[in-house]
């Protein structure tokens, strides 16, 4: 009883707001606390940045594609994409009118306490950011009745518990043009790596120009019916920095995708994808789940740490 009281008596908790050394405290019950209003402030700033400033790795990838592209029309289209990114940043306007439904990934330390509601704090940040940024409200409250919620909430929040007391939040405004083209498949285990590659390439071919190529392709392999799409989204949210352990697999898919000739906007060319990110997880002896989540050329994200 003595132990429980120490841990759970809120009067005994020490607030170490914005301090990163909470773990260093040698009293077992010291816990870092962050305030919901600070999460709101961070989300507001992050959605404005994400929607107006294209991440540097994506800009570099489009520039590289522009240099290499052999089809004149495709080069023109890539040039407009680069010009758009410059204009959006300087004018602080939305890169794309589809400012998406916001996917929020929260990496939260298990030794951290949030004072207030995380969910409400995130949605309030989106509400304020979308109003200030003049971003489109693209969310309907009910998929059948389809009334716009008017403020682009609610977000889709993925919570991941990590060790320690860190708090990292990534906002990912995801447009529907690309999201609608995603696919999940439950392959036979014997299909192997080649089966996965074929599945991803078929998904890209089927999507054609609709998801706004050149694409960022997120692939999730393994787990079960719900794991694979979450892995695919996680892969898509990673920068294009070839940092993962599956580079050969990723490059094999990328090469096949760019051989399709779909090109920027589906109008033909060498550049159908800017990159492929892949995440894997253990799976059942009878399963080979694979999910493809397509990101457009304006794959937007912004990460903040509190």
């Amino acid at each position: 009883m003595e132990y429980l009281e120490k841990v759970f008596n809120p009067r005994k908790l020490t607030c170490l707001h914005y301090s990163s050394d909470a773990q260093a405290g040698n009293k077992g019950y010291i816990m870092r606390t962050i305030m919901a209003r600070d999460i709101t402030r961070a989300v507001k700033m992050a959605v404005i940045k994400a929607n107006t400033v294209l991440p540097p790795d994506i800009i570099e990838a489009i520039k590289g594609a522009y240099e290499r592209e052999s089809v004149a029309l495709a080069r023109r289209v890539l040039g407009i994409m680069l010009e758009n990114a410059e204009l959006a940043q300087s004018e602080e306007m939305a890169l794309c009118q589809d400012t998406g439904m916001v996917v929020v990934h929260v990496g939260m330390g298990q030794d951290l306490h949030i004072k207030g509601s995380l969910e409400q704090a995130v949605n309030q940040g989106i509400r304020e950011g979308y109003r200030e940024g003049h971003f489109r409200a693209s969310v309907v409250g009910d998929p059948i009745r389809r009334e716009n919620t008017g403020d682009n909430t609610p977000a889709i929040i993925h919570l991941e518990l990590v060790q320690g007391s860190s708090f990292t939040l990534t906002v990912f405004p995801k447009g529907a043009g690309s999201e609608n083209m995603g696919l999940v498949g439950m392959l036979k285990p014997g299909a192997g790596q080649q089966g996965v590659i074929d599945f991803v390439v078929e998904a890209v071919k089927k999507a054609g120009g609709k998801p706004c190529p050149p694409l960022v392709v997120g692939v999730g392999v393994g787990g079960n019916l719900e794991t694979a799409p979450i892995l695919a989204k996680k892969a898509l949210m990673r920068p294009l920095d070839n940092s993962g352990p599956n580079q050969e697999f990723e490059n094999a898919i990328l090469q096949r995708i760019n051989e399709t000739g779909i090109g920027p906007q589906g109008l033909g060319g060498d550049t159908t994808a800017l990159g492929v990110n892949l995440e894997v997880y253990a799976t059942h002896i009878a399963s080979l789940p694979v999910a493809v989540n397509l990101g457009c050329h304006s794959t937007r994200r912004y990460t903040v740490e509190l």
Partner: protein
Amino acid sequence: MTGLVIKPPLTQEVVQKLHAGDCVIVTGTVYTARDAAHQRMVQAIAAGKQLPFDPAGQIIYYTGPCPAFEQHPIGSCGPTTSSRMDDYTLDLLKLGLRGMIGKGERSDRVCQAISEYKAVYLATVGGAGTYLAKRVVRSEVIAYPELGTEAIAKLEVLEFPCIVAVDSFGGNLYHR
């Protein structure tokens, strides 16, 4: 971007000068409409009611813009995926709609109807929302204001860059 300048309303003769792969510049009036507005227009046609604008010779631009900042005519306004409008398109082509601006492939049925009714489907650059907003000089909501971003607006565009994706002779840039 350079190309042939076209000014709506479009005649059959102008449309027949356009071939898949051509760059064109649109200057003049276009009407915005996407999913919800199309649904309403098609319901109106079925009920024998008048449409908010006469589609004869006109261009519909598939877009749902961001809210405009003060002193700006419009917010970010790139094209949305056209195929979602495929089921509604025939009814409008029958009434003389001459052009559509959007992004991505159309259904075979729509492509056939584009030939049959001598119309044109133009692609512009999806995701280039700010770049394209700079080419809109005026925007006025003319119907269904309760649909918000999905309302029908009359836009005046200046040198709006497009690529002929499906022409009136069956040419299709997506089918290579």
